[in-house]
């Protein structure tokens, strides 16, 4: 049984990791931190390097949680990537960060967070970045 945490190097991502690690400690479950870059471009600004993932694992260890970092590539569908991970690892909870978006932003672009909320087969915990 695992908890999946969606992570990007943003305040929302940090908040998600914090919440995910708390839940992991509470439920004594393994935490998988998912940092999924988009396939196509040679560089994704949201992909974290080895140093950053070591730092994340150190944070998990400090919280007393068994954790790992995974970086699967996704094409157009991030929700599917999460679904596959849920099936593969027996996930019980997905933790993601939400950010405030403007009306125009919502109109033009879809929200991956929203699609994860709607399409995930397990409960989803969403957190906001601390103000």
């Amino acid at each position: 049984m695992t908890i999946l945490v969606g992570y990007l190097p943003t305040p929302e991502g940090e908040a998600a990791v914090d919440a995910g690690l708390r839940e992991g400690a509470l439920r004594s479950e393994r935490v998988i931190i998912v940092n999924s870059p988009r396939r196509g471009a040679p560089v994704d600004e949201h992909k974290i390097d080895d140093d950053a993932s070591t730092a994340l694992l150190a944070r998990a260890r400090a919280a007393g949680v068994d954790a790992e970092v995974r970086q699967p590539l996704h094409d157009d569908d991030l929700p599917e990537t999460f679904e596959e991970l849920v099936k593969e690892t027996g996930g019980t909870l997905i933790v993601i960060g939400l950010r405030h978006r403007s009306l125009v932003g919502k109109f033009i672009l879809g929200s991956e967070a929203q699609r994860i909320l709607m399409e995930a087969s397990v409960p989803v915990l969403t957190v906001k970045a601390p103000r």
Partner: protein
Amino acid sequence: MDISPILNGFGVVMEPTNLLYCLIGVIIGMLIGVLPGLGPGATIAILLPITYGIGPVSAIIMLAGIFYGAQYGGTITSVLLRLPGEASSVVTVFDGFALARQGKAGTALGIAAIGSFVGGTVSIIGLTILAPVVAGFALDFGPPEYAALGVLGVLLISSVGNGNKLKAIIAACVGLLIATVGRDTFTGAERFTFDSLNLAEGIDFIPIAMGLFGLSEILYNLEERHNQVHAPAKVGNVWPSRQDLGQAKGAIGRGSVIGFVLGVLPGGGAVLSSLAAYAFEKRRAKQPERFGKGAVEGVAAPETANNAAATSSFIPLLTLGIPANATMALMFGALLIQGIQPGPQLVTEHPDVFWGVINSMYIGNILLLIMSIPMVGVFVKILRVRPAILAPITVLITLLGAYTVNNNVYDIFLVIAFGLLGYLMKKFGFEPGPLVLAFVLGSMIENSSRQALLIFGGDPTGFLTRPISGTVLALVVLVAVLPLIRKAVRRKTAAADGVPVEEKTP
């Protein structure tokens, strides 16, 4: 030597428009150098129609800037991400990426930029001194000499270049065949036109270049799935230490010379010279095992050599009118579009073009040195653009550009046809380079040899009795026969050693 035309050339470069086009050229060059997939050849091909609207000097200055700018840009991705942006930066990956992993990415980039600057500048000085001499010598050339030179050019390009020789020769033959399409200039007879008015005018160079280099490269790259996505790299201090500079000094000097010499040879160019310079450094190093593990020389030598070669490959084009590699064939085309025939007369008839272009390289190299050191981060950002977004935009620009040349839809179909041909050629291991070069040289060979035969009164032995054309034709035979002799000798020695001969596919 009369230096006033050289100084006038600087006057031409210093005009604000030309400075601006030089800047635009080197920036575009840097950008496409960074992007893996889109090379300088493809970019110059795609931008050929734009050169219609601007003056000949500005146009060639910009295109040249793209060419040598790309050599700088290719380094950046090689070092930071282990992705060579250009074929000429492939060997830089070995030591460049090793240095980056040791946290010395900045050093590698700094050394590469300084090496590129030195290599480029040494090569321009060589060009400044050598080009007028060669051009002066070539003024004695008549049609027979040009015919012989053209044949030598086609042969060298198909045999010296990288890859399969037989396939290169096949591609060159197809190029020669395409060059004959259209109305014959001497008799007015129509050849391979199939009663089409469009074909009667012959096939233009632009759609061929845009299709074979531009469109086919985009198509070919779309197929490639990037299954590795990198985290953004951090670049620290780019100023190399005094110790690193000291280590790289020798490599930069030797790289300049190797690059200059190999760049002049047909079929040589930037790719070959970077490989040769790296191999040479490794062989003469006291501790060759350091190479591949972050040797500063391993970055300095190839990066210096590819810039030196990029510059010196202008010599045969500007002085003899013979393009030394595929990119130079595009330059050749660009000059023809402007109504300027590249050749020995260029330096006397169009001194502004000749010296303007050469001197713009001094300026361009300084611009690149200024840009490449502090602005690496900006250029790396372009790697976030996905091919799925970039490719359609590039295709649109290509097809629009093809249309604007003659306002003729037929040209668009030609570009698409040649794009597909180029794509299939690449799929089956043929290089489009020899085809385009043979196409460019084909009409020159044909016209010169027929003019020569008219001069000789139809006697073909005239080619052999004239000293220069005779020498060139002897070289042609030598180039054609040498590999066969070498093969025969190798087989003989191998047989003498009792070793079974391994049949190498050509």
